[in-house]
């Protein structure tokens, strides 16, 4: 199989349920499974708990693959003062998603092995053993999709790298450190009372009196609603 075909089979190859996890490495210890489960408390049903447990009990990527993934993610999003992809547990997320979305397993594994094929061909060593400049040479080949083509029309290795970039970015920006870096300040009880004045000013916007007169007066939010017979709020 030539390179192009092999990547094609990576990208198109979604595996059937029958061979699901075939190449995943089993044998995560019960202790570790328990520890992982207790980390994620998010209101699961019994069925969902069992599904998560099943995935936690499988190790999909071997140590070398995990090391390659980690280095790749670090190049995609290098550490800064807020944190790193390690703090954000991006490699763990990729490991989990490769089981949660079964087609990812083969896709990601084959992409990793291809990366090593490139590096062995060019530098006679595997990707993680190359220095950073050498590693970036490979990335430069894959990191820039053609803006005029749809994602499925991109070269296969470009598609693979886009997937890794997406997983890295979403992993980082949905983590504690990433959310802090982004500056998202919601998901907390508050009394929302409109767009801040300086923001309205920035856009040359203002609330119209007629509209705002209909809106909630937050100082009265705890007064029990009472209406007259025509539906006019009295409180």
């Amino acid at each position, binding site marked *: 199989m030539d390179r192009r075909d092999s990547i094609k089979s990576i990208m198109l190859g979604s595996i059937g349920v029958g061979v699901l996890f075939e190449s995943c490495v089993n044998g995560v210890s019960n202790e570790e499974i328990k520890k*992982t489960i207790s980390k994620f*408390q*998010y*209101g699961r*049903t019994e069925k969902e708990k069992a*599904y*998560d447990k099943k*995935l*936690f009990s499988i190790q999909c990527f071997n140590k070398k693959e995990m090391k390659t993934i980690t280095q790749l993610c670090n190049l995609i*999003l290098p550490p*800064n003062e807020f944190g790193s992809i390690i703090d954000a*547990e991006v490699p763990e997320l990729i490991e*989990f*998603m490769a089981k*949660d979305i079964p087609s990812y397993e083969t896709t990601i594994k084959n992409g990793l092995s291809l990366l090593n094929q490139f590096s062995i061909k060019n530098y006679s060593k595997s990707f993680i053993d190359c220095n950073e400049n050498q590693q970036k040479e490979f*990335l430069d080949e894959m*990191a*820039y*999709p053609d*803006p005029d083509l749809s994602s499925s029309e991109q070269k296969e290795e*470009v598609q693979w790298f*886009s997937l890794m*970039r*997406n997983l890295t*970015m*979403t992993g*980082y*920006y*949905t983590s504690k450190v*990433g*959310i802090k870096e*982004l*500056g*998202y*300040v*919601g*998901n*907390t*009880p*508050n*009394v*929302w009372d*409109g*767009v*801040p004045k*300086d*923001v309205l000013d920035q*856009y040359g916007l203002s609330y119209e009196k007629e509209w*705002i007169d*209909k*809106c*909630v*007066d937050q100082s009265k*939010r*705890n*007064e*029990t609603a009472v209406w007259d017979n025509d*539906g006019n*709020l009295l*409180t």
Partner: protein
Amino acid sequence: MQIKENLKEYDVIIVGSGAGGGMATKILSEAGLSIAIVEAGPYFDPANPDQMTQMKWAYDSPRRGRGTTRPFGDFDQAYGGWDIEGEPYSQVGETQFRWFRSRMLGGRTNHWGRISLRFGPDDFRKKSIDGLGEDWPITYDDIKPYYDKVDKLIGVFGSKENLPNDPDGFFLPPPKPRLHEMFYIKGARKSNVKVMPSRLSILTKRINNERGVCFYCRQCARSCMAYADFSSGSCLIFPAQKSGGQIDMFVNSMVRSVTTNEEGKATGVSYINKDDKKEYKLKGKVVVLAASACSSARILLNSKSKQHPNGLGNSSDIVGKYLHDSTGGGRMAFIPDLMDRKIYNEDGVGGMHVYSPWWLDNKKLNFPRGYHIEVWGGMGAPSYGTGFNVNAFNKFFGIPVGGYGDVLRKDMRKYYGSLIGMDGRGESVAMKSNYCEIDPNQVDEYGVPTLRFNYKWTEHEVKQAEHMQNTFEEIIHNMGAIALGNKADKSSNFGLTKPGEIIHEVGTTRMGNDSKTSVVNEFEQLHDVSNVFVVDAGPFVSQADKNPTWTIMALAWRSSDYIIDQFKKQNF
């Protein structure tokens, strides 16, 4: 097979605990009637920490919230979806109907958008207006007192607008518009599309001491631990229990059929306990079906007997017919003005603060029914998918897309919160040829025969979807935004959603005065069997361009009053 029979005879057995079942439970139990609720899913209380997803962060989930097991994401409070393992359904021909079920106490009311719109006077007489479908046997004036009562009992924010077909109610005050919503207002007005505060059943103000007030986390889809949004458990069933109602709850119990006697009257229900997979029977003087339009039709069709050979209440052969869902269409856009915007908390309530009711006259258009526009966007909480294609909008500026390294951080920050979306939700025309029926070849894992669907959109819906796409494009242009993706065209039915996808399926047991052309009367009572009622969206004759929940509850309350009256007259 041994069937276990419960010796107690209830006054009323209510099948399903969503909007209709919850309302029937509250009204009937408060009248002193003994009630059995039979629910196919587990017990659910939004305040139960073991079930709660509200205020969780993406990183509390190992998949960062992705919708692997729940179609709207890990934190959405609907146990189920369009596809449920062990509970299949099938399609006839090219039908692509999608049937969403939520198996839990409170059903789909735990996760819905809380868009709480009254039908207007015209919505009950569409045949008189455009000659299509059928008029309802009731008018707006018949249902108005019940809409008023639902507003006051449950709470809905909105504003007085004096529109002829979008009646005002007893509103709590709405929240102020968000920034992207102000861009929408600007664009829509330039296109002569009316915009007004949205109408959602979320408490922006206290309505009683049992329920909390909204604390603006934008997570109503996760069901509110403070009971500050409407869900059937928190607002109807739990209060009914608290006020001393005689209510027995049978959860994880899948109703197979309504049982009947020699005279053809209902005697109760038979159900499968999902835990032991055994069949049980409950006795009741009255059976109220509130299992959702398609589930109630399925139960009726599966309730065949010597007296009801075509299924219960189906002498007309209308059960399952006239199934219809809302139409749907949407478009996303990028607002360049919102690049690198200041970040502040703009969560707000769970849903839009502004929307556009239907604003045109169909007499001047090439399709018969209207749609409203919902708006979304802004600085939402990061979850799985955030950061995907982080700098795809670079292409609008001729800058390279993709890359790696610190530049991605800047791109993430630059484009965060610059997206806006519009969704049209419209009225379809109810067709007799769109229906669900029992699949003779399939049963679910409990041995209950399943449904199969026959559904085809008509030209009316396709033309409406085309109009939506043109409207979205114009509004996007007028707000200074850039439309994303290609405009949906004829090859994709102009982006029209598949039937069932909007999860407003109604009409399968439609009401009417003529027992030959309808299944229930105006009190949602089967024409054929006086002690069986259907109080979900099955009895809808047409569903308007309004979301169905508020009308389900107003009708369920009206029918419950009728049931109480019939009990008083000793008719059961």
